[in-house]
């Protein structure tokens, strides 16, 4: 390292991070809570049920215990779910499978130590954010891909029906779209649909 880089935004924002801790009040729970408070996060604790997340929750830390394994948390696995860091006491396949289902980016081993929590939080938040961005990017790519496919189909139909070249077929689609003040993929979609309706 030759130059100190700017502090990552995720670390800068830790003091406004709302953390929900789903953990019993045992020694691990106390250590976890004390360290989160030292770090300066806004912490809320509940155990074992949590039917809805408090608004603004940026991170959930959850004890992977028999109590939580049997609960179906309705706020998990949705497009708006925050990242979850599991606190792992058992390494049996059942528990590990539950950890994997959470799509966790970091875990905290039990017995909980103060050291390592900050890194786990930073890794989880960063990877979660990157993952969300990738998902959105893939979604946009898929939408774009679908549009291209419809336009391609419509071009083929126009080429056959009018006996024109691919380039001319495209220009026809474009001028129709401009005339109707619509997107080219909308016009293309109508042509494909009409063609399907007629092909019986």
């Amino acid at each position, binding site marked *: 390292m*030759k130059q*100190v880089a*700017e502090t990552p935004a995720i670390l*800068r924002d830790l*003091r406004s991070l709302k953390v929900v801790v789903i953990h019993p009040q045992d020694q691990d729970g106390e250590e976890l809570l004390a360290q989160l408070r*030292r770090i300066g996060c806004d912490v809320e604790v509940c155990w074992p049920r949590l039917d809805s997340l408090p608004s603004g929750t940026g991170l959930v830390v959850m004890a992977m215990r028999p109590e939580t394994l049997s609960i179906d948390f309705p706020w998990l696995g949705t497009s708006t779910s925050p990242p979850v860091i599991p606190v792992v006491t058992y390494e049996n396949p059942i528990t590990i499978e539950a950890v994997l289902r959470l799509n966790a980016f970091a875990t905290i081993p039990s017995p909980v130590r103060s*050291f390592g929590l900050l890194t786990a939080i930073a890794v989880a938040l960063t990877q979660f954010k990157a993952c969300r961005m990738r998902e959105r990017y893939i979604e946009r790519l898929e939408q774009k891909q679908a549009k291209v496919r419809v336009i391609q189909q419509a071009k083929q139909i126009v080429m056959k029906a009018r006996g024109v070249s691919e380039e001319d077929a495209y220009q026809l689609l474009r001028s129709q779209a401009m005339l109707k003040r619509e997107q080219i993929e909308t016009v293309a979609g109508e042509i494909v649909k009409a063609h399907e309706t007629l092909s019986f």
Partner: protein
Amino acid sequence: MTRIDSGGTSAPIKIGVLYSRSGVTSAAETTQLQATMLAAEEINRAGGVSGREIELVCLDPQCQPRRHAELAEQLILEHRVRIIVGCYMSSTRKAVIPIVERHNALLFYATPYEGFEYSRNVIYTGAAPNQNTLPLAGFMLSQFGSRVSMIGSDYVCPYESNRVMSDLILERGGEKVDETYLPLDAPWESYLDVANRIKQRSPDFIFSTVVGEGIPHLYRAFAHVGLDPYRMPIASHMTSEAEIAVMGNDLAQGHITSAAYFQSIDTAENLAALARYQARFGADQPTNMCWEAAYFQMHLLADAIRRVGAEDPTLLLRVLPGLEFEAPQGRVRIDEHNNHTYLHPLIGRVNAHGRFDIIGRAPERVKADPYVVSHITPEWTAHAHPELARAGAVR
């Protein structure tokens, strides 16, 4: 308070001491060792801790992290010690922490460090960044300007201090004009190169996170290329009276340091402790921030042992949080939740006698916040500081 019957034992209380007498940071560590000895002698002269004498077991870790770990284990296993005072550089503390955690021993750490740590088995009595780097940054950026040269020793603490400083410079629209890290054992010529570069680029001030033997090199190089500390000072949170004693007063004069303690503090506690120290170790022996933390932590420890009637770490940890002591710097307090210490931040400028004229001080003691990432500079550092002008002209 809980008082456990110690069975009327009069066996001495053994305390392990890990301060280096050779190696890059031995100048400051030697003063910490002597402060520890002074405090132990004071406690013993006053009848010990509930009639039990304090017995120091001093080993020399020679500034090497591995040796720190080995000697910490030796203290615990062979000397049957449960409490250790010592460590200076973060690398040495990091080496000792796993040992004290494994054996449930207790480490008292009396040196400023970079924060982002909490161990149940460590009591931190030196400053966290919000108690030294932050006041220094606020003071320097307000009083001198925000074009800054950074020079540090190549290890973790300087990087972290410079991250804090860099963020604050950028927030103010300032500029990092230079950023250099030198190995702990870099020769004088390397410092000369840096000083020449600084002279060329003419920043508003130099932020130094150099430690140990590099400090005299840096200040000497600065003077050698003809820079004026009253126009462009070196600001540091590590340069203390211990390093000034090595480099000589003339090289240090005009430069600025932030710390929770300077020898020149005029509290009754400081004057008395200083007199006893110099009577014991020599009239020419200066004190410094690390000396003071090493001194007051022994008294806090003795008080804690007195309260629980034993030197068992688990019991001590029940009373240490929240414990207060009238230290030379003023009243200090161990925080209830993070094992760090409330301290009194000061800004000082070296005068012709090699002592610090205090040119800024926090209005009250400051809680250590070892996990703060985004810093806001304290308000008092931005005010006009007439003491600064008196301690040397700002042009």
